[in-house]
């Protein structure tokens, strides 16, 4: 099992939930209206006057075999709307209950 952390422009929210559904990943935890900025070109999303726009983040525990397809779908979405910003990071899950 892998933990996939997806950080994105809040505008992507509905689409990402759809992708999770499509790739048969039911469980996720989501944060809405959070701040962040990209490491290279990503514009800050501070929800402030100067940097309007907010980020969202979704953490989903994904079975190993589904990780690749999920990332593929997410990449496709990111390329469709490059200006919005969407990143996903995969981590190992040590244990769970």
């Amino acid at each position, binding site marked *: 099992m892998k933990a996939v952390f997806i950080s994105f422009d809040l*505008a992507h929210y509905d689409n990402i939930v759809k992708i999770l559904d499509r790739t048969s990943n039911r469980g996720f935890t989501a944060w809405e209206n959070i701040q962040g900025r990209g490491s290279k070109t990503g514009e800050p999303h501070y929800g402030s*006057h100067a*940097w309007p726009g907010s980020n969202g983040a979704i953490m989903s525990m994904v079975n190993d075999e589904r990780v690749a397809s999920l990332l593929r779908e997410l990449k496709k979405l990111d390329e469709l*709307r490059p200006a*919005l910003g969407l990143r996903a990071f995969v981590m190992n899950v040590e244990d769970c209950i």
Partner: protein
Amino acid sequence: MSLYSTAVKKPILTALCFLAIVVFGLFSLTRLSVDLYPDIETNQVMVITAYQGASAADIETNVSKVMENTLNSVSNLKHIKSSSKENISVVTLEFEYGTDITEATNDIRDKLDQVSNYLPDEVSSPIIFKFGTDDIPIVILSVTANESMSALYKILDDKVVNPLNRISGVGTVSLSGIPKRQIYVYCDPNKLEAYNLGIETISSIIAAENRNVPGGNIDMGSNTFSLRVQGEFSDARELADIVVGSYNGGNIYLRDVARIDDRTEERAQEAYITNTSTRGERFVGKSGGIIIIQKQSGANSVSISNKVLEKMPELQATLPSDVDLGVIVNTSTSIENTINSLIETILVTFIVVLFVVLFFLGRWRATFIVMLTIPISLIASFIYLMASGNTLNIISLSSLSIAIGMVVDDAIVVLENVTNHIEKGSEPKQAAIHGTNEVAISVIASTLTMLAVFLPLTMVPGMAGIMFRQLGWIVSIIMIVSTIGALTLIPMLCSQLLRLNPTKGKIYDLLFSPIEKGLDKLDYFYAKVLSWTVVNRMKTIILSLGIFFSSLFLLKIIPTEFFPTMDGGRIGVTLEFPMGTRMEIARDLALKIMDEFNEKYPEINAASFTAGQADTDNTFASIQSNGSHIVSWNINLSSVGDRERGLEEICDLMRKDLEKYPEIKKSKVLAGGGASMGGQTSVDVEIIGYDFDQTNAVAKMLTDKISNVKGIASINNTREEYAPEYQVDFDREKLALHGLNMTTVASYLRNRINGSTSSYYREDGDEYDITVRYAPQFRQSIEDLENIIVYNNQGKGIRIRDLGKVVEKMSPPTIERKNRERILTLNAYLGPGGVLGDVAAEIQQILADADIPSTVSTNISGSFEDQQDTFRDLGLLGALIILLVFIVLAAQFESLTDPFIIMFSLPFAFTGVFIGLALTNTPLGVMSMIGIIMLFGIVVKNGIVLIDYTILNRERGMAIKQAVVDAGRSRLRPVLMTTLTTVLGMIPMAVGLGEGSEMWKSMGMTVAWGLAFSTLITLVLIPTLYTTFAKNGLVRRRKAFSRSLKKQNNNI
């Protein structure tokens, strides 16, 4: 969940909410009545008290003074004026505008109760009279007749007045200039003397003979009958057969001593008409009368006038063939013309704004979304109008026209930002929510600045306040609705209608590519200009200040005014002949002039004049000056669009024409028919002093001097000339010798000359006076008066000549007082080219230089006083509004420097206004002042947009200059777009050609010029100033930082 996300997520709810507003608004629209002006309650209350037989001086001491002393304590009183003339005292109380007149009237009533004990016994109870906009006649009809003239009153009363009264909404219908029937018993004094009879005896005999007396009930068998004596005359001729006495055993019949004349009133006001009858026949100066129709208060003027006009052919059919009805004044046509021209203005404005939006956005759907806010917010204001009981009138419709250009601003800002988001790749729904979220605060802030301007307008005191209360409320409500719409409906529509990558057709490319290219070039050019100015800051600032200060010199050549004279197509003319001129002579000359005017001025639609003394029971006429030597005209011109010459021009030509007649002592030609609003402007000089001779002398001297002032058309002295009159000076000793007293002989005199009305002749349900008096040929000379016989208690006849002397004297016919002092007013009316401010200044100089006795004081009032009052009020209001706008801005930017920089666009609004007014030669009046006040809220908007984005750029880490130039380039389009919608939206109003457009012309001109010029300067100056201030701030912070560093180092 925020407002806009709810709106976007529930499109049906949002759409239906606005649909409900529209439906309710349209429903309100169907219920709104149409009128020319908002319902203006008068600020004047008149108290009219009659004291039969008292002279002007008696009235002044016994009635007017007593009244003034008591009524002076009524609260909110501005001025108290009185005019005392023979038999009547009119005390006018002028209240501060906005005073609750109903309450004031109650106060007055209470005071009158207190005063009643101090008035002479014979004084009739005072009448309280208010004159509001509801009392203005809505239709004035003319009637002309030949043979039927003598019976006209009765014919009209039955066949016209009653049917018109039955129309719902019609208040009162009154007849003027049509003599009533009266039965005169003309006695021959010689015959009376021969039979030892007096007028009193005959009068009481007639009264005694002409009675119906119920005699009680009588039981006869099984029935009860009532008993009656029917003594009333059934025919006027029966009068002749009454026995009035006996002489030498024979009966003396009334016919033996008198002639019974069943005729019209002897001394009545006569009216002459020039008009086109309903049958299409044109007649000039034909005798007839006037029917005045007033509406019930709150009724719809237009619909009632139309109903009256619809009824006219029907009424005409019932009248004898020589009686013709015609329309002199029909307010509904002028209201309809004015309202239609305003509606046209609104539509033109809408189309202009539509094209501006389309030009900049280049997309039909986006344009549609933005334009949708206009009808929704405008329609919402109808709900307010209905709820507050207002009407559709000049003010409310003009407010709509003013608002159109501004309501789209919020929608444009929201739409622009949402489009940006969509172009970045957001789904329309998400884009709508986020895009709105980002600009919501600045949209609300810019609406708040507008409210900071328009809400205080609802609190303006005075005359202007009444006019602008509606403007303030309507624009405020429209702004609020449009902001709510911009935050809910616009994002919802964006999410539904806008597409991510709209396909662009060939037509689009063909049409909008060049526009797009042009706009890009403009952006580039502007960025270049900015890059230069931010480097050459001092030059830019000095140049701008130079422009501002040099524009102040324009103030010298800009004329000032109060309210523009509106071309309502009505002229009031008063001709005054030397005191004592017989009515017939005045009338004949007036008829001649009527012919001349009719030929010279084809613009005259209808005209009527009245000549002669008005009836004493005609309250309306007794307020105006009238008399056998006065002829007053009402001239109605065709509507503005149908004629080439303007009202003022025609008035001036008429004045010149009247000067040619040496017979006329004084003539007054007033544009607007003397109505208070939009009437002719005047500077009034009040001459206050008790002594008549002294004040008259001062008046004469001042009149001579003032008439030389440039721009004065005519000067009118309110003090009428001394009237010659005959007084009978009785010798009290002689009276006592014969057992007579003053009252008895005076009443003998009155009964013979004025007549004694003792009884009424009844016919067909109408009553006519039976008046007994000397036949006309026996009351024409002083000898006739001296020969009058007075009978004492012993039945002995004594001639007046044995009791006293008949002497000729002069006395002032009217004594005017203001604030409890005798006053004389010179009204200096302004002609074309007359500038109120200049004329007033010159007159002030004349007053200062003039040699005036110490017991006489002078004062300037009239339009000039009103103008000064209003300008002061508006100035104060302007200062208040600037402060409010500053507070709103400071709160939004959380800074004191940024709003200060933004406020620099204000002076250039003035520069623009001055340049505009000077170029178009438009005078600076109340309307332009209101325009300037509106500008306070409008011009700062551009500054807000620029500074807001500059700050944003700096927060994003740009350097000051870069931030300024970038902000300028990216905000240029929204600034130009909102400015152009407002400026071009004002242009239809500023060039206004329709009826009633004079009113708003200067305001439209002011806003358009002020905003256009201020925007041009703002675009360059505000970024430059910002750079300067930001640089200084930076330098200060750096110094402070280095100081603290040094401190730290020292400490170590």
